[in-house]
């Protein structure tokens, strides 16, 4: 029998990292991809928050003398046809993407949780109605729904957030409902009921916290796709209006015309979107592995 390096094997299993930083460090090593995702997300959030300090130019200022400048030391990612600094626009664009991503995920998530909890907890006709409504929402293609919603509401940041959030609701509420249904039968809920806790209190104190893990997993998974949906809407001309530097808008049809004469206009925003979504997805995956033991692989 080959000699076994117990220390090595144990380190690999994470036995040395039982708490605090060492545990975090270990998890980062264990989930290299997730750690990379977290770093990307952190950079992304950091960029969004400190955009004003990071950006080297005002993202909205037009300068005809500098239109369509190639990437250079002065303009790291070149300038667009208005002479606006692409790097600064991407930095500020992080804000919009983050606002849309977090805003619509939070909005859709919150409503989804309320609907899911109510639906799963009350069951009966409330459940039936909610179920049918979410059937309806899910049978409509997400982008079509968002398209009509933005057309109805008009293109602005809050409206885009709402338009993207609505199709999220059934997705979230289904998960929460399923979890609620399962949790309702569990002994601790029965126990709470037997000592006369009110239904609402049980739902909020006992059921909700226990659905948190799948909710977080779902939310991070959705974060990326909301950013992509916003980009698609902007591409189709219905997202955040000019002059705000939304990444999707930067990539929209008119920018795409410059794909060969000024490829930096197309490449950098595309990379920004892909990277942010990629980061969110990597992080979401790792989070799922850590938080959702059933899925742990």
């Amino acid at each position, binding site marked *: *029998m080959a000699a*076994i390096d*117990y220390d090595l*094997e*144990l380190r*690999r*299993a*994470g*036995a040395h*990292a*039982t708490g605090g930083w060492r545990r975090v460090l*270990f998890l980062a090593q264990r989930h290299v991809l997730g750690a990379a995702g977290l770093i990307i997300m952190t950079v992304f959030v950091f960029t969004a928050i400190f955009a004003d300090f990071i950006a080297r130019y005002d993202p909205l200022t037009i300068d005809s003398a500098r239109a369509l400048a190639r990437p250079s030391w002065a303009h790291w990612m070149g300038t667009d046809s208005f002479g606006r600094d692409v790097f600064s626009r991407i930095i500020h664009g992080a804000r919009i993407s983050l606002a849309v991503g977090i805003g619509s995920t939070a909005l859709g998530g919150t409503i989804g949780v309320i609907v899911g909890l109510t639906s799963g907890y009350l069951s009966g006709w409330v459940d039936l109605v909610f179920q049918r409504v979410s059937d309806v929402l899910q049978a409509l293609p997400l982008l079509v729904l968002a398209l009509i919603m933005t057309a109805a509401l008009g293109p602005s940041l809050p409206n885009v957030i709402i338009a993207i959030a609505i199709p999220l609701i059934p997705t979230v509420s289904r998960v929460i409902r399923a979890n609620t249904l399962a949790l309702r039968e569990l002994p601790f809920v029965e126990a709470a009921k037997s000592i006369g806790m009110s239904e609402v209190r049980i739902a909020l104190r006992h059921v909700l916290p226990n659905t948190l893990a799948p909710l977080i997993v779902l939310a991070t998974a959705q974060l990326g796709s909301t950013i992509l949906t916003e980009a698609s809407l902007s591409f189709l001309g219905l997202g955040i209006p000019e002059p705000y530097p939304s990444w999707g808008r930067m990539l929209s049809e008119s920018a795409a015309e410059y794909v060969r004469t000024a490829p930096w206009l197309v490449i950098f925003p595309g990379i920004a979107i892909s990277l942010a979504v990629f980061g969110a997805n990597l992080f979401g995956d790792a989070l799922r592995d850590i938080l959702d033991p059933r899925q742990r692989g």
Partner: protein
Amino acid sequence: MADKSDLVLDVRNLQTVFFTNSGLFRAVDDVSFTVKRGETLAIVGESGCGKSVTALSLMRLVPDPPGRIVGGSISLEGTDLLALDEAEMRAVRGNRISMIFQEPMTSLNPVMRIGDQIVEAVRLHRKLSSKEAGDVAVEMLRLVRIPEPARRAREYPHQLSGGMRQRAMIAMALACRPALLIADEPTTALDVTIQAQILALILDLQKELGTGLVLITHDLGVVAQTAQRVIVMYAGRKVEEASVEALFAAPKHPYTRGLMASIPVVPTPGIAAPARLNEIPGTVPSLVRLPRGCAFAPRCKLAIKRCEAEYPPLADWGGGHLAACWRAEEVAEVA
């Protein structure tokens, strides 16, 4: 000791560990035992004592990572299983050594017909046409006393009751007439009425086929009914080994004594005693931070200073009755 050629299984100093994020987990620690042709060896202990890992170690099915067999030898019909490569081991598994699992509900592939699952087991080790193998499968189902075996063979697991499924599992395990059958709590998940039938079936077939049997259970009643010899495991170690009669007559380890405490009378073989294990005060110690001395000492009424300082060696207390306790001789008296 019996004639060497009579030995089906000879396990020596088996050590299986798990590398976990809370540390090294010695699931099986220096365990040795033998099984003779046609003999039934029972391994008993509370859950988590390492008996199931022992069984999986015999099959070399300990999931790696995190588990690993790190020491000892497992000799099956004279072949050291631990020295085989994976392909050679596959040729042995299901062929010379088979296993029945605890959960008949989940241990059969839900999307394969019963017959096909047995056919697969047969054809992995015997050069038979699928038709011939199909005949063997039906034959095996008949052997395990499943009515209308030909029809049942075409059914899916969910169409069978729990007892039927366990019979099918047994049919599958015995399809290649293995030298050794490991049954890991084969009746735990079944209705009480079915338990006895399944147990009887296993014993019948064992007799018929001359198979060695390792029966893993926590049910001393089952042990009394079926086994010739018993191993008691605690915290990954073998703490006592004896013939069934000797053990029940006079246990030499306080843990065994504790296990028996719930049983009102010492049962005689052949009489069903549906007794369950009694709760022993305290909990099974963490296998990661085992005390230096006897692992049972914290729960033991007979514990003395020495128990905590020094691990008691397995000593022969007469007639092959092994026990690891400093006060083995006093155990029987302390009721």
